[in-house]
């Protein structure tokens, strides 16, 4: 769990905080007179809360995994080659993106 996990966490949290906190406040001034202002604010807040919570669950679930994926060995070789660019001899080859 290096710094990259935390940066992901911070970036995503800030994104949803923007949508869930900052946007409704902005709307308070932009849409001040409109009768639908309350509804739109509720929509923003609820979207942010639901989506953030959902992402957070998936993220924390994988943060400290207890079990790993069980794969066929051929598949592992393909994975190694395609995703990590390591050919069977163990050397890195040019990654095919």
């Amino acid at each position, binding site marked *: 769990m290096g710094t990259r996990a935390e940066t992901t966490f911070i970036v995503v949290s800030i994104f949803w905080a923007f949508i869930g906190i900052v946007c409704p406040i902005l709307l308070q001034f932009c849409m001040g007179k409109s009768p639908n*202002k309350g509804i739109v604010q509720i929509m923003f807040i609820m979207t942010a809360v639901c989506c953030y919570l959902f992402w957070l*669950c998936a993220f924390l679930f994988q943060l400290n995994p207890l079990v790993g994926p069980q794969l066929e060995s051929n598949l592992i070789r393909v994975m190694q080659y395609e995703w990590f660019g390591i050919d069977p001899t163990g050397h890195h080859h040019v990654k095919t993106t």
Partner: protein
Amino acid sequence: MGSLFRSEDMTLCQLFLQSEAAYACVSELGELGLVQFRDLNPDVNAFQRKFVNEVRRCDEMERKLRFLEKEIRKDGIPMLDTGDNPDAPQPREMIDLEATFEKLESEMNDVNANSEALKKNFLELTELKHILRKTQAFFDESGVFKDYEADHHTMQAMHDPLIPDDDVQLLGEELGRHAGQALKLGYTDIQHGEINVFVAGVILRERIPAFERMLWRVCRGNVFLKQAEIDTRLEDPITGDRVDKTVFIIFFQGEQLKSRVKKICEGFRATLYPCPETQSDRREMSIGVMTRIEDLNTVLGQTQDHRHRLLVAAAKNIKVWFIKVRKIKAIYHTLNMFNLDVTQKCLISECWCPVADLDRIQQALKRGNERSGSSVPSILNRMSTRQEPPTYHRLNKFTVVFQNIVDAYGVASYREVNPAPWTIISFPFLFAIMFGDAGHGVIMLLFALYLVIMEKKLAPKMSADEIFGMFFNGRYIILLMGAFSIYTGLIYNDIFSKSLNIFGSAWKPDPSVYNTSSMDLKNYKINANNTVDRPYPFGLDPVWQLAINKITITNSLKMKISVIFGVCHMLFGLSLSLLNHRFFNKPLNVYFEFIPQLIFMCSIFGYLILLIFVKWLKFGPADTGKAPNLLIGLISMFLFQYEDPCKPTTCWYAGQKGFQITLVVVAVLCVPWMLLVKPYMLRKQHLEGKPHQYTLLNGDMSQDDELLEVVHHVDSETAYPGDDDGYQEKIGEDVCEIDLSTSRYNVHIDSLEKLMKVKPFDFSEVMITQAIHTIEYCLGCVSHTASYLRLWALSLAHAQLSEVLWTMVMTTALSFKIQWLSVIFIFVCFAFWACCSIVILVLMEGMSAFLHALRLHWVEFQSKFYKGEGYQFVPFSFDTMLAEYGLAE
């Protein structure tokens, strides 16, 4: 926040309208559509109401218009729909309209009657023409019968295909001879005392076989029938259908047979025509008939033209007329609900209207007064009442569908918190958790976008089709459902059962696997230490879609997500109930219902959620096999089962045993708190506050004589709405003032009684209600939390169906051995896969997830705070009335 959060503040108003101005004012109110009138004459028979004659006239007018419309439709003339919305015409215009319709109807009737008579005539002449032509053939053959005895050949000639076989056989030679004789000799031979005659006529082709049989039976085979089919189809004057007919001619001897034959012809509704005997006569007649047919054709053409012109002129205005007549009728129906006061000069009604719109209603009344030119202004007077007002939510085209979902369960009680604005997001989101496939989400989103962007063009088509109408009405829901499904699909990393690797998988296989020579290591588990330095940043790692133990892992994730979202949803519902209690000012409910409910839920299920998060954060790859099982832990927490040296799987943080025991004890204590304290407090208040209960109405008994005084916005408080425990006293509540001047005006006794009713305090009833609430809540906590696991179940089902479809269909197609054939095979298989995807996965699963999300909202969420015992506000509005007619057509 708009009125969608709570229903609108409504007030009961009294409306005093002068008789002259009443019509115009009601018309203006109908255009406005913000007022719901109460029927002040519910006992009065429909035929005894004041304006029953006007309503009858309107019905007459509508009937005439419908008749005209039917005629216009029959002729296929398009009716002009300008989208005009004319105001309801004045009563004097109504007379003009009536005259117009009367004239149109009588003209149409005349034209139709004439046309019918002409057509009948035409038909007769045509049939006569055909008869003359066909019988010519029959009589021609008679010329052959000069020598009938020896001429079998002529017999054969008679045996032509026009005669059915049995006729010839039955008749036999002798009769053939007789027939020939009859033909040859002519017909009436009175000298011999015999009358040989024939009749000619026309009958429907279908009836010919039965007709022949009847003739044969009745006349015992002594008649001779010849028939010939008419080639052209003739038009029946009444129905306008084209029918096949046959010409027949019957020869017989004797008066008796004649009467029998005539009767049979009548019975089969064959029309008989006088057919002249000699050839020259027939020819003359033929010519006469032809000229008459031509004349008739001309006249018929002119009649049709006249009719067409009439209908075209009517078609221009008919839509507008319909609208006007319906508006008039609606106004008079409403006026029938009014009460006439003692002086017979003024109409009075009661109506519900939103407080925020009182200004607009006043303006509408003013406009109505001006239009009718009345000198006396109308009066709108606010009244206080204990009745529960209707529930009114202001909706737009987006929110109306979500409000309908909530109202389908039950209309919100007056001024309680409305679940609809929260449902806008939570419903599609819960749907998306169950649907969870980005590819299918895209399909839904695109479909909904099409409906939304083309909504103006598609709106008229919507009323035609029921199923399409359903999809069209729900286009905004489908839009949100599709959008959120894309999001959850990306988090579950499931797009048509495939996963996306955007950020790089976190599971890197150990290089040692390449060095292993033993190929019987079929499966190699990438153990939890072989990860890169960060988890997959957005959603589930793509490797899981390929893994054999995918389901174990996704089950764990989805179940925990379900419980987390379930408990959060329920806690949210509970907090909405707090808002309700505070709004209706019921402190008892806050302290003795809300707080124990909250503590009960949090101490058990809130604690569970906390444990979930802590376990995720605290236990890693090093603790495989030692990590605590939360479910077992929860169960042993309840059963107080802790082993003596507490095992690390059960007690994994310091002080856990003590903490958990405390939580369970607190939760159990909440139950009597919920059950017993509130009834006791209510009883105490009842015993202390006895004097209060009976002083109900310090009504201001002064009667308001000044009908002509303009009274604006009398500031009386709207009453405290009744609810299930109306015993609870509002501290500092003003006793309502009732404007008892209404008692002069035949106000229905019931409303007065309701005003005076007081419920006696029954302790046992209160106790039982509270017990039911408590049991329902406590058991509901557990069962509803488990019920939220359907979020996991449906998403698992969807993912598996999707995967099976792919594996069974597309994989076989893509791995087809014969290369040149595989192109066609892939094409066919893709079509099959796409159809199944849409029908099974999008439509069927979508509907299933929709229903389950709906149930979760209706039962699990709303049972925490929603009463739903109100009734809908149905304002008197021309727009809704016309829309209903439009749908009914």
